[in-house]
């Protein structure tokens, strides 16, 4: 009887079977997916062909870029004014009851070290908050706001005198005096030498001969040559005041430094930043793979009178909590759920998602981002090879695909420094022009000591947009140079591994061809042309350790170019007249572009968007572009 049963009869007799369960779930899932798909934008009105759509997007982008360029300064001023007005109104409304609480931030990776004198990624939130710097500098307002110093004076073109704020103490009670400050500043060059140049901030102190404590609260520094940016450099995080006693007690031996008189000094670092290292407004109470937590230090020194961004009695905010969230989408979800106070950059395409959300403020800011492509001088020593790479890149296609809502060509110096960056978009397009035929001819004519038939674009993970940029780069290079047998690929690794391989100096050639970094979606400037971004071309900085473009290069043309650009970099740095300096900087940028030197910037977004929680007040929007947001002690959090 049973043998004659068909499937349906058996099915009726059965309790729940695995198969029934699977079928039921599958049908439910497929149905749900179909309903969701049906909810999508079904608008077929736009029946333009694919290629015209891209062209239209490119044209729209160009128009947007032109409009943005013309209105950039106005927008910046308007945005700043509007933000200031909003903040002022909010402050007025709130009155004197400025609430502390916990400010919740995020970063994509944990730090690899905290010593302010050694270059590492992902550590500035700790250094700026737990340590004291001389002051902050806001290029948009040209304002120095005093912090650890109460004044400075340039006695002559090569002598600078600092006056330290009286009454400051490190977190362990040790006094902050001229000995400590001179030690903190003087160790930068020693660390650079001891670590064999593996950190790249040297442009900020390479011109200094010595730092000397003159009396308890005065430090005098002597320079080997004048430097127009010296005061601005002093606002950077590596000029933090570090407690020498803590370094003595907990320091890790890094190497030796030989003085001019032949004496040798051991050099130590404090990568863990033990308690007592700093004298800043916060102390670090947690640092692990999940993030950092900084709590207000009750004995923090007073700022009397308080300069812009500082308050007399120390910061309003009680705690800074920075979570490691490797995934930007997860960070966005946390921000939308009020679990983060800041989210940046916001992609222009995702702006509709933030519409109508009362707990979030989206602020538009001029974009000073950078999307860099460093070239290994060990392989691309012939400038024709570097030029071939630049001619093999489809700039207009890139803007259409990656910057669909507005993109602009990038000069070696950021547009956020209009006093120094004078090259127009049309100037830049003369150098940055897609020409596959010329690229092939240049590549074939170029000399290669190390043969290159595959171009590896090497990038850090963290920013999904960076993946798209590197993908576009690899595709563009392979399309243009593929006919002569060149292939291209992308390799992505975590940020710390990427940085280690980027500056690996164990051989004269890198294990990648192009070092891709920066998604160009947003960014700011410290106010120094070197920081933004001549340092990427400097044979004493990234040019040396990341791109093998340096004075002692075994490739003669690289060594010769290095000598030339170092002279030009020194000349512009020594020029204190802004107009004369702008002329020198234009010549320098032209030389870089003529020689396809070392690195090139892809078109960047012409606008950027930052997301702030509505409870965050007086955040000083411009400070988030200057990197001194961590020093803005007047920020506070609205209750509720």
């Amino acid at each position: 009887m049973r043998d004659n049963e068909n499937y349906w009869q058996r099915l009726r007799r059965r309790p729940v079977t695995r198969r029934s369960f699977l079928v039921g779930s599958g049908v439910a899932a497929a149905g749900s997916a179909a309903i969701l798909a049906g909810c999508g934008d079904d608008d077929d009105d736009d029946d333009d062909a694919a290629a015209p759509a891209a062209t239209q997007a490119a044209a729209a982008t160009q128009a947007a870029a032109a409009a943005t360029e013309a209105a950039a300064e106005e927008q910046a001023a308007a945005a700043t004014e509007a933000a200031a007005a909003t903040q002022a109104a909010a402050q007025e409304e709130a009155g004197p009851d400025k609430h502390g609480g916990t400010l919740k931030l995020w970063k994509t990776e944990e730090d690899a070290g905290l010593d302010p004198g050694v270059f590492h990624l992902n550590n500035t939130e700790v250094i700026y908050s737990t340590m004291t710097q001389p002051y902050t500098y806001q290029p948009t307002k040209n304002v120095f706001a005093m912090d650890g110093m109460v004044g400075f004076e340039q006695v002559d073109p090569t002598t600078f005198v600092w006056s330290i704020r009286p009454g400051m103490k490190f977190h362990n009670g040790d006094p902050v005096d001229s000995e400590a400050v001179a030690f903190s500043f003087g160790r930068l060059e020693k660390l650079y030498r001891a670590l064999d140049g593996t950190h790249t901030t040297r442009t900020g102190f390479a011109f200094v001969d010595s730092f000397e404590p003159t009396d308890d609260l005065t430090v005098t520094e002597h320079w080997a040559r004048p430097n127009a940016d010296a005061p601005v450099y002093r606002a950077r995080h590596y000029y933090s005041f570090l407690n020498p006693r803590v370094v003595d007690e907990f320091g890790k031996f890094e190497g030796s430094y030989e003085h001019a008189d032949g004496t040798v000094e051991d050099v130590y670092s404090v990568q863990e930043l033990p308690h007592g290292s700093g004298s800043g407004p916060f102390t670090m109470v947690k640092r692990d793979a999940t993030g950092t937590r900084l709590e207000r230090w009750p004995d923090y020194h007073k700022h009397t009178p308080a300069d812009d961004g500082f308050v007399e009695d120390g910061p309003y905010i009680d705690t800074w909590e920075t979570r490691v969230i490797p995934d930007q989408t997860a960070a966005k979800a946390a921000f939308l759920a009020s679990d983060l106070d800041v989210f940046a950059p916001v992609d222009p395409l995702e702006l509709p998602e933030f519409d109508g959300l009362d707990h979030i403020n989206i602020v538009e800011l001029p974009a000073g981002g950078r999307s860099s492509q460093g070239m290994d001088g060990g392989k691309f020593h012939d400038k024709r090879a570097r030029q071939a790479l630049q001619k093999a890149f489809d700039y207009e296609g890139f803007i259409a695909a990656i910057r669909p809502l507005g993109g602009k060509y990038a000069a070696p110096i950021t547009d956020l420094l209009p006093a120094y960056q004078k090259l127009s978009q049309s100037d830049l397009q003369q150098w940055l022009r897609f020409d596959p035929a010329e690229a092939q001819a240049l590549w074939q004519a170029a000399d290669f000591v190390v043969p290159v038939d595959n171009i590896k674009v090497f990038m850090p993970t963290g920013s999904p947009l960076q993946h798209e940029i590197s993908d576009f780069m690899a595709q563009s290079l392979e399309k243009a140079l593929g006919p002569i047998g060149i292939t291209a690929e992308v390799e992505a690794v975590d940020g710390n591994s990427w940085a280690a391989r980027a500056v690996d100096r164990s051989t004269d050639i890198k294990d990648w061809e192009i070092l891709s970094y920066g998604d160009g979606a947003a960014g700011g400037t410290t106010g120094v042309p070197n920081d933004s971004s001549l340092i990427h071309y400097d044979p004493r900085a990234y040019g040396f350790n990341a791109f093998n473009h340096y004075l002692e290069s075994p490739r003669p043309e690289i060594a010769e170019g290095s000598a030339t650009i170092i002279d030009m970099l020194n000349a512009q740095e020594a020029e204190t007249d802004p107009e004369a300096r702008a002329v020198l900087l234009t010549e320098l940028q032209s030389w870089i572009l003529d020689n396809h030197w070392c690195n090139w910037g892809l078109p960047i977004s012409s606008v950027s968007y930052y997301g702030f929680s509505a409870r965050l007040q007086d955040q000083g929007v411009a400070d988030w572009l200057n990197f001194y947001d961590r020093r803005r002690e007047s920020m506070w959090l609205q209750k509720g």
Partner: protein
Amino acid sequence: MAQEQSALELEYAIPPRQRFNPLKWARREPFGAFGFALIIFIVFMSAAAPVLRTAPPNEFAVGPPLAGPNTENWFGTTARGKDVWSRVLFAGRISLKIGVATVLLGTLGGTLIALLSAYAGGAVDFAVGRIADMFIAIPGLLLALVLHSSISADLPDLPGLQREELYLVVAISLFFMPGTYRIMRGIVLELRESTYVEAAQVVGSSSFRIMWRHIAPNMFGLMIVITSISLPAAILAEASLSFLGLGVPIGGLDAVPSWGADLSGSSRRFFSVAPWLAVFPGLALAITVFGFNIFGDSLRDSLDPRLRGRI
């Protein structure tokens, strides 16, 4: 007497082998047949991707950014103007390729190790068993991460299998192999003690001959079942690893789209404003896994009478 003999012959006669009738099987196992049809559909769509595509899958700006499904881009476009339909089609290739290669390596490897170690017995069996225990104790994802950082850079490019694809195959196979070994070892231990194996030993057959001619053929049915059930899990594992950025190459003209990778990366930022970025790759993945699952389940019912479907 003759009548008795003929009754005995009838009782012990080897029944004629029944020919496999697909239509009869489809009537008996309609969901299995439906699963098989889904698999054929996915294989066809993936194989015909170069013909069915509406744009190169990696090409940027073939349409406006985040365009919804329309007549030009049937499944819409990504934030960078890539065609989702074409990407979904091509992504099926990597899923099937990695899935099949993984399951073949994992199942064959696990079966072979089980056959050799269980038949040998003693110290060999004990040692192999403990190694399998060790691998089972390590979470699969952790194992994949360790392998990625330790061996992926040193793997060679094989014909038809790039270095990154080979890494996926090795990482996922290592996850499946110990489980297969465990199941197969039990079968070998049972078969080793069977009468016909003892008979073969008595007549002086070599160990290799016994394993190859008498034990292995009896493992074949279960091997097919394990293969069909492991395959959807392997496809999901590939999608998961690609989702985490440990999958196939992510850039360049030869980069292969993957459903898992397309469900992660930059697309995820735009899921709420462009749901088609999640729906179509997700649906393709779900259909494939569903197809293999119900097909494998029916196959199990058909080939293994001891495991008739009740849960």
